[in-house]
C-alpha cells in the first residue's frame, strides 16, 4: 500500500491552519487566558537542595488582606498519590526550587510579596549532587527506605540507587575473544533542560457542583486530567482540561506541576486562579533531562566486523526514584548495530535535583552518544571510514535487537548511504576543523488516539483530535483526511477540543501523533467514505456497493448520477441524520526512525570556542506528510543536540543550588551560533501505517551529541568524553595536552 504511491495531498508543503494566528499574535498560549474575578498565585520554593522541613507557619500570610488562599502539602486531598510530594514538598525539600507552599492573592505582586511572610523552619541536610556522591560508601540517604530493585540478591540496607536492570544476548566472553581490537571509554553528560520558550502556566476554576476547568499548556491534556483528578479525588467527568496552544514541550510538558496546586487554591478561595512560572522556576523546578555516566566497551575484527558491545549506564533520576529514562537508554544504545553479542547493565540513581522528565527520545541521546563516540574511535583505530564501518555493521530488516523484537524494514543503511553521498561529506576540511558522523535510533510509539470527523452541512469537515499540536500536526491531519477522502485539504479544519469533547488520547510524545493520530484520522475518514456511499445509495435507491467514491464525488455505477460531498451532506438530514466519522484506535506498529548526522566544527584554539560551520541531518521519515515540518523536526532536533553537545548544562554550587537558571547562563543555541542545517528526508515506508509514516520528532536530537563530540575531538586532536564541550572545558584540554 505504501510503496511509491502517487499522493495528491500528502507530501505537499501546505500552509498550516494554525499558522495565521501564530504570526499575528492571536494564538492563545498558557499564560494568555484571564477570567473574570481571577486572582494570581505564586509558589514558595525551597532555597536548599536537601533539607528536612521542620515546620511551616502560614499564619502571617493568611492574615494579609490581599491574600485569598494558602496551600501546603497537607491541603492535597489524596495524600497517598505518589505525585503529591512533587506538587508540594512533604517532609523534605528534595531539590533547590522544590515547591513548599502556594499563595493566591488579588494581584501577582501581592502574591509574590506574601511569599516572604511564610515561615519555614528547615534542617539543612548534605546535598547529593552526582552519581559518585550518591553511590559513595556512607553517602547520605535521600530516601531512608529506598532498597535497590533488580539486584540478583535484594539488598538489606537502603541506598541512593533505586533500580538496576540488565539485558544480554549472545556470548560476551566469546565475542570479545574474537576481537582483534577492543576499545573502552567512559562518557559523561550533564543535567540539561528541554528549554521550551513558554514557561509552564495555567488558569483554573474550581466548581464544586459542576465542572472544574483547567486551561494549560501541555503535551497531553488527558494526562493533566488524570493526574489532577487523582490528586484532588475528583471524578474525571468533573474536570475539563483545555489544552492551550503550547509553546514547546520536548517531553517537559507531559507532567503536572502547577495545575493541582492552582485548583486547590481556586477551591479554597472560590475564585479562578492563574499561576505562571518565572524562567528560573522552569529551570529549577520542572523536569530536566538526566545527567549520566556511561562506560562502553566494543570489540571488532581487523576487517571491521564488530564482535561484542558492552555498556554500564548510570542515569540520574532527580530526587524521585525511577524517574530516569534508564530503560530506553539501555534499550537504544546498541540498536543501530547488528552485532550478536551485546550486554548492558543500567542503574537509576537518586540525587538532589528536580525530578527528571522526558526530553526528546528520553535516555537515548545520552546512551547513543557514548556508543557513537566509541564507534568513531574504533573506526579510527581500524583505519576504516566511519560511514563504511557503520554500513558494514548496520542494523537492518530482521536484525535481532537486544531488547526483544526483530527489526522490520528500517532505513539506517539508506541514511548512511545518503550521508556518504552528501555534499558535506565530500567537502574538504581546513585547519582547526573536525568532522563527526553519528547515527541515531529511536523506537517511536503508537498508542491510543481518538478522532471524530464531523461533516458539516456544506460538505466541509471538522476534524476533532485529542493530540495537542506542537509542531504543525493539524496540517498533517487535514492532509491525511484529504488524501483518504480525495477532497481538497482546505475542506478540513483540524482542532484539538478539550477533554470533555473527545475521548482520551495519549500524550503527544514518543513521536506518535502524525503516526497514531494520523491513523485514527484515516480510519475516521474511511468511515465517512462508507457513509457517503450509503447515503448516496439511499438517494439513488441502489446498494452501497453500487456506489463508487472517486475524486471526492459519489458515482452511481449502475445508472446515472453523481453527488458531491456537499450534496450528500446537505441531504444528510433526510438520509439518516448528520454524518460523523469515528477513529478511536490503539495504534500498533510504530516504525523506528533512524538518522545519520554530519557535523563540521571549527575550534578556536585560543579560547576553546567551537563553531558549527556545516551540518547535515539525514533521517528516515517513512513517508513525509508535510516535508517542511519534517525537515523542521530534523533541524530543530539537530540544533537542540548541538546545544547539548557544546554548551548546555546545569551548574550547581557546592550547596547544590543551581547557579544558571536563566537563558543568559544556560545558553541555548542562538541564530548567530548555527549554520544552515541541510535536512535530507529518506523514505523507507512503515508498512503498518496506511501512508507509510514513521514518527520523526525525536530521533534528530540523538546523533548531534557524538557528531559534535567527534568533530571537536578531531579538530583539537584530543579525544573528549564529557559534555558539554564548552569553551572552558575544551581550552583546558588543549592547555593540558
Amino acid at each position, binding site marked *: 500500500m505504501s510503496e511509491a504511491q502517487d499522493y495528491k495531498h500528502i507530501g505537499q508543503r501546505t*500552509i*498550516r491552519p*494554525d*499558522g*495565521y494566528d*501564530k*504570526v*499575528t*499574535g*492571536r*494564538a*492563545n*498560549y498558557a*499564560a*494568555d487566558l*484571564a477570567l473574570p474575578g481571577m486572582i494570581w498565585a505564586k509558589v514558595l520554593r525551597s532555597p536548599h537542595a536537601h533539607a528536612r522541613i521542620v515546620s511551616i507557619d502560614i499564619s502571617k500570610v493568611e492574615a494579609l488582606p490581599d491574600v485569598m488562599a494558602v496551600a501546603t502539602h497537607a491541603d492535597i486531598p489524596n495524600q497517598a498519590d505518589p505525585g503529591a510530594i512533587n506538587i508540594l514538598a512533604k517532609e523534605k525539600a528534595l531539590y533547590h526550587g522544590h515547591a513548599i507552599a502556594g499563595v493566591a492573592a488579588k494581584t501577582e*505582586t501581592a502574591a509574590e510579596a506574601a511569599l516572604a511572610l511564610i515561615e519555614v523552619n528547615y534542617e539543612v541536610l548534605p546535598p547529593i549532587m552526582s552519581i559518585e556522591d550518591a553511590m559513595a560508601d556512607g553517602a547520605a540517604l535521600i530516601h531512608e527506605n529506598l532498597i535497590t530493585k533488580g539486584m540478583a540478591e535484594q539488598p538489606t540496607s537502603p541506598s541512593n540507587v533505586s533500580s538496576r536492570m540488565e539485558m544480554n544476548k549472545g556470548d560476551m566472553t566469546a565475542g570479545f575473544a574474537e576481537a582483534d581490537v577492543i576499545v573502552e571509554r567512559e562518557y559523561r553528560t550533564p543535567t540539561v533542560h*528541554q*528549554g*521550551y*520558550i*513558554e*514557561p509552564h502556566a495555567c488558569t483554573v476554576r474550581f466548581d464544586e457542583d459542576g465542572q472544574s476547568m483547567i486551561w494549560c499548556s501541555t503535551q497531553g491534556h488527558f494526562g493533566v486530567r488524570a493526574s489532577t483528578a487523582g490528586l484532588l479525588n475528583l471524578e474525571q467527568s468533573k474536570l475539563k482540561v483545555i489544552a492551550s*496552544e*503550547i*509553546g*514547546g*514541550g*520536548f517531553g517537559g510538558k507531559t507532567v503536572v506541576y502547577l495545575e493541582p496546586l492552582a485548583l486547590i487554591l481556586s477551591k479554597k478561595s472560590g475564585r479562578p486562579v492563574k499561576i*505562571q512560572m*518565572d*524562567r528560573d522556576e522552569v529551570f529549577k523546578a520542572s523536569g530536566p533531562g538526566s545527567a549520566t555516566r556511561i562506560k562502553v566497551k566494543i570489540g571488532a575484527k581487523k576487517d571491521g566486523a564488530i564482535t561484542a558491545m558492552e555498556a554500564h549506564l548510570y542515569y540520574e533520576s532527580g530526587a524521585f526514584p525511577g524517574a530516569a529514562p534508564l530503560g530506553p537508554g539501555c534499550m537504544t544504545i546498541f540498536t543501530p548495530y547488528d552485532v550478536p553479542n551485546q550486554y548492558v547493565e543500567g542503574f537509576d540513581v537518586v540525587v538532589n535535583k528536580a525530578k527528571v522528565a522526558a526530553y526528546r527520545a528520553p535516555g537515548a541521546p545520552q546512551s547513543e552518544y557514548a556508543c557513537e563516540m566509541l564507534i568513531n574511535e574504533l573506526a579510527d583505530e581500524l583505519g576504516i571510514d566511519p560511514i563504511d564501518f557503520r554500513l558494514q555493521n548496520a542494523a537492518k530488516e530482521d536484525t535481532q535487537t537486544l531488547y526483544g523484537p526483530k527489526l522490520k524494514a528500517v532505513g539506517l543503511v539508506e541514511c548512511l548511504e545518503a550521508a556518504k553521498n552528501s555534499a558535506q561529506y565530500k567537502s574538504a576540511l581546513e585547519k582547526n576543523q573536525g568532522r563527526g558522523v553519528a547515527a541515531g535510533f529511536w523506537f517511536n510509539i503508537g498508542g491510543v488516539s481518538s478522532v471524530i470527523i464531523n461533516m458539516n452541512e456544506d460538505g466541509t469537515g471538522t476534524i476533532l483530535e485529542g493530540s495537542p499540536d*506542537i*509542531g*504543525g500536526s493539524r496540517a498533517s491531519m487535514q492532509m491525511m483526511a484529504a488524501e483518504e477522502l480525495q477532497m481538497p485539504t482546505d475542506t478540513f479544519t483540524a482542532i484539538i477540543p478539550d477533554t470533555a469533547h473527545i475521548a482520551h488520547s495519549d500524550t503527544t510524545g514518543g513521536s506518535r501523533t502524525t503516526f497514531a493520530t494520523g491513523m485514527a484520522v484515516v480510519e475516521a475518514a474511511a468511515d465517512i467514505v462508507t457513509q457517503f456511499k450509503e447515503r448516496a445509495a439511499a438517494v439513488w435507491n441502489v446498494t452501497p456497493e453500487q456506489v463508487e467514491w472517486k475524486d471526492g464525488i459519489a458515482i452511481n455505477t449502475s445508472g446515472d448520477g453523481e453527488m458531491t460531498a456537499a450534496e450528500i451532506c446537505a441531504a444528510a438530514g433526510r438520509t439518516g441524520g448528520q454524518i460523523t466519522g469515528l477513529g478511536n484506535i490503539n495504534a500498533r506498529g510504530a516504525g523506528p526512525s533512524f538518522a545519520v548526522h554530519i557535523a563540521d566544527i571549527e575550534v578556536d584554539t585560543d579560547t576553546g570556542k567551537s563553531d558549527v560551520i556545516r551540518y547535515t541531518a539525514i533521517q528516515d521519515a517513512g513517508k513525509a506528510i*508535510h516535508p*517542511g*515540518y519534517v*525537515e*523542521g*523536526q530534523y*533541524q*530543530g*532536533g*539537530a*540544533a*537542540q543536540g548541538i546545544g547539548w553537545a557544546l554548551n548546555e548544562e546545569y551548574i550547581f554550587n557546592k550547596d547544590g543550588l543551581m547557579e544558571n537558571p*536563566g*537563558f*543568559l547562563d544556560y545558553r*541555548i*543555541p*542562538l*541564530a*548567530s*551560533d*548555527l549554520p*544552515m*542545517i541541510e*535536512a535530507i528526508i529518506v523514505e523507507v515506508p512503515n508498512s503498518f501505517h496506511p501512508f507509510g509514516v514513521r514518527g520523526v520528532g525525536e530521533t534528530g536530537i540523538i546523533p548531534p551529541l557524538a557528531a559534535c563530540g567527534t568533530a571537536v575531538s578531531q579538530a583539537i586532536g584530543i579525544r573528549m568524553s564529557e559534555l558539554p564541550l564548552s569553551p572552558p572545558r575544551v581550552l583546558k584540554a588543549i592547555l593540558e595536552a
Partner: protein
Amino acid sequence: MTKSHITATINGDVREFLCEPGDTLLQSLRDELGLTGTKEGCGSGDCGACSVTVNGRLVCSCLVLAVEVDGAEVGTVEGIGEPDKLHVIQQKFLEHAALQCGICTPGLIVSTKALLEENPSPTEEEARYYLAGNLCRCTGYDKIIKAVMDAAETMRGTA
C-alpha cells in the same frame, strides 16, 4: 501604592492605562491592554519573545517599565499586517514553515520588521546576528533565516 496614568500610542491607537511603578511594559500590554501577542519567555531580556518597538526602537518589553512609555509610540505584533492581508514577513514565515510551536514567532516578526527597516538587504550573517536576541528552540533557525531573506527580497522588489 499610587498607580500611574499612562497615555501611549499603541499600534497607532491612543490608549490609556494605569500601572504600578514596578510594572513592566510587557505586563501592561498583556494584562491591562489585552495585547497577549507579546509573549513572556524569560522576563530578563534573554529570549526576545516580548520584542516590541518603542518610538521605532526594538526593545524587550520585559526590560522597559510601563511608566517609561508615557507619550511614546509602541508597536506590537498586533500592529503588523492588515486585517485581511498578512505582512510579507508573516506570509513568508508561513510559506517557509518557519515556526513550529509559534511562541517565539510574534517576537521574531517584530524583530524581523525592525531589521528590514534598518537594513533592507541583510546578509545571512547580518540577519543571524540581528535576530540573535530572539530564541527559538524548535526550528534550528534554518527556516526562519530563509523566511527572513525571502521577505527581504520580496520587500525590496515591491518597495
